[in-house]
């Protein structure tokens, strides 16, 4: 009967359609890993999109490596978000086994929070690991292995400042926080914003807090170890609360630019170069953006560390570079290790320099600083040469609560006080440490 045939036809097409849809859905998640025998092995490198310099560095490294190794192709996937979202993406992808062959992430405490012993590819037996700077190696390792290769150089954290503004107003680089605030008053009287903040990129809100660590370590040398063992707190340590107090001082004095809550990193750098603001707390890697976007004015941007209370003990808080890691589930471990070996070599350093210029001392033996450096870097290098540096807290302790940037925004908008922010951060650290299963918490 026609009726029955039509019904059968409809049923058959419906089942086929559903089956095809189901299969299409299933196969979409396998990721592009390319063929093994025919064509180059393709490695995907996943990273966040928040910092354009990082993306350029990654692409330069990928291009140079692929040129030297035609059978392995590294493709950069810079589709990740920034801030809290990026942390979420990284952790989720690793936990569900869905991570790309390589990914770019911070070293130090943030890396420890990725459960490296179980989720990351161990490269401790590779020959190039011996060439890594000891301090750096500690920030990408646990007791059970080493997991990363550096995709940058050591950096410093402190204030970028507009040298022209200083010269016009006859100011000197401040050696203490009081001097800094006095400078700020003079700058504000001249109609310029003393300090630029860029809360639109929330991660930058914590810069002053983190870059002040050298001053904390001067007064409390054991702070990092005590914090890890739960024998001290931020709220109970005046030197540590002082870091929070500095941000509060800036807000209370009205030093911040009017639109600080929406400004982004690039916009803040532009304001600094244009003289709309005099200081901007940031890591020295950002000098590459200045060199690229404002090549003529790059020499009028200088750098000095966050001043403390003592003019004699004036030092720099240093950052280890971010690293490239691989998940333990990668399908091409040998190719991945080869790429990481390239990154941690003199060729890798050359690629990094080509992409972002010299931003600080390299952490791989055999990589030397050569050629011209920007004023920001040349202002910073003496601190490394004279050994007046301290790594930032996140490289000395794995306790770094995830909400510091939001707490900093809260403090910077005047909603809380320094003491309250320190207490909030202690709570944050407690939850983080318990999650990591650290002893003593």
């Amino acid at each position, binding site marked *: 009967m026609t009726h029955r045939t039509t019904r059968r036809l409809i049923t058959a097409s419906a089942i086929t359609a559903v089956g095809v849809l189901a299969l299409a859905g299933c196969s979409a998640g396998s990721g592009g890993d390319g063929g093994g025998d025919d064509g180059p092995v393709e490695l995907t490198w996943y990273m966040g999109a928040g910092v354009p310099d990082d993306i350029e560095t990654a692409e330069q490294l990928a291009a140079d490596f692929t040129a030297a190794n035609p059978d392995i192709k590294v493709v950069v996937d810079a589709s990740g978000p920034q*801030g*809290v*979202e990026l*942390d*979420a993406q990284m*952790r989720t992808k690793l*936990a*569900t086994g869905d991570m790309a062959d390589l990914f770019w992430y911070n070293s130090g405490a943030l890396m420890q*929070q990725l*459960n490296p012993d*179980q989720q990351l590819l161990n490269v401790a037996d590779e020959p190039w690991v011996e060439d890594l700077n000891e301090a750096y190696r500690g920030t990408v390792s646990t007791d059970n292995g080493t997991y990363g290769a550096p995709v940058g150089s050591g950096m410093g954290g402190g204030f970028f400042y507009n040298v022209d503004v200083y010269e016009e107003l006859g100011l000197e680089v401040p050696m203490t926080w009081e001097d800094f605030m006095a400078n700020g008053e003079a700058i504000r009287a001249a109609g310029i914003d003393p300090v630029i903040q860029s*809360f639109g990129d*929330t991660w930058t809100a914590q810069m002053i807090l983190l870059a002040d660590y050298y001053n904390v370590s001067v007064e409390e040398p054991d702070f990092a170890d005590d914090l890890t063992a739960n024998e001290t707190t931020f709220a109970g340590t005046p030197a540590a609360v002082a870091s929070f107090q500095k941000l509060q001082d800036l807000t209370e004095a009205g030093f911040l630019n*009017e*639109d600080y*809550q*929406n400004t982004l990193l690039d916009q803040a750098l532009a304001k600094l170069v244009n003289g709309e603001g005099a200081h901007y707390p940031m890591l020295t890697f950002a000098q590459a953006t200045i060199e690229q976007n404002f090549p003529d004015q790059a020499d009028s941007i200088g750098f000095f560390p966050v001043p403390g209370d003592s003019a004699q003990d004036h030092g720099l808080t240093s950052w280890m570079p971010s690293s490239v890691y691989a998940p333990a589930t990668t399908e091409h471990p040998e190719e991945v290790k080869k790429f990481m070996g390239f990154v941690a070599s003199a060729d890798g350093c050359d690629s990094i320099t080509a992409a972002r210029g010299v931003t600080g001392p390299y952490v791989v033996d055999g990589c030397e600083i050569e050629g011209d450096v920007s004023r920001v870097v040349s202002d910073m290098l003496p601190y490394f040469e004279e050994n007046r540096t301290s790594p930032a807290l996140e490289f000395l302790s794995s306790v770094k609560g*995830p*909400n510091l940037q*939001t*707490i900093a*925004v*809260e*403090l910077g*908008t005047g*909603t*809380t006080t320094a003491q309250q922010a320190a207490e*909030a951060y202690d*709570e944050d650290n407690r*939850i*983080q440490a*318990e*999650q990591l*299963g650290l002893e003593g918490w």
Partner: protein
Amino acid sequence: MSLDTADVRPRSQANTGTSRPPSQRRRTRQRRNQPYPGWFYAPAATIYGILFVVPTFASFYFAFTRWSFVETEFIGFDNFITFFSEPRLSRGFVNTFIYAVVTSGAKVAIGLALAILLTSGIFARGYLRAVVFFPVLVSTIGVGITFKILMDPFDGLINKALAVVGIQGPGWLTDPSLALLSVAAVDVWKGVGLATLIYIAGIVAIPSEYYEAARVDGASAWSTFRNITLPLVRPATVTVVILSLIGGLRTFDLIWAMTGGGPGFASDVIASTIYKQYAAGFYGLSTAGNVVLFLVVTAVVLPLYIFMNRKSKEL
């Protein structure tokens, strides 16, 4: 056609008289309102069980643990204590209620007003109804991002328009005391179309005899509204209140797109707090937050539903 095997019996048993005849059994089944045998429900029940029931009960378990996807450590009520004792986390709890009540109340009031307008003899009524409903269809994230740009304190269109009239617009999303309410306003803008639609359906269902009788009696417009429209539109009100409360208590995407819970923690709600805990890798704490949200929504909506439906039955 299926055959209930219980209806097929050997003749000897059918004649004993101790069991009901087959026709009565089929009628019993029909009276119990089950036109299909039990195993018809099996596929849907399996999917519902695996994808909804099992995860719900699993989450009740994981909420009591410290969980990292690979290992679980039972810690009792610690997650819940943390959730309520930490000012950052408990603030989200309070904000959620504020947000839900504000958006729900606004949607009811504005929705009803718009529905009355759009069921009167206004010009281009069909077009206006479509315009009012259109925001409901648009992507929430798109709306969030658009309004975030519009609400920029210095470059945004809203403050620029206010400046033309001489008003200094506040920081809609940057002032900690305004941020949550600004997002609530956008939520109302987006969701009021649905409330209006439900109210229009309710108003149109009111028989016109009531209105005619009221007009004969000389009732004023306000009196008509209060004594005829409002009581008779109660089922629609119940629906709108329940739906918007549930939505308001659970809201996440609009807040996340507009402020990310900021500035600081000022516009955090339970859902965004849960997401932040998840983002930080605190899966047990995040699940505890989800359990809290589940209990809160149930505790608020279930009594409300019973209360409002009982009252409408009395009517």
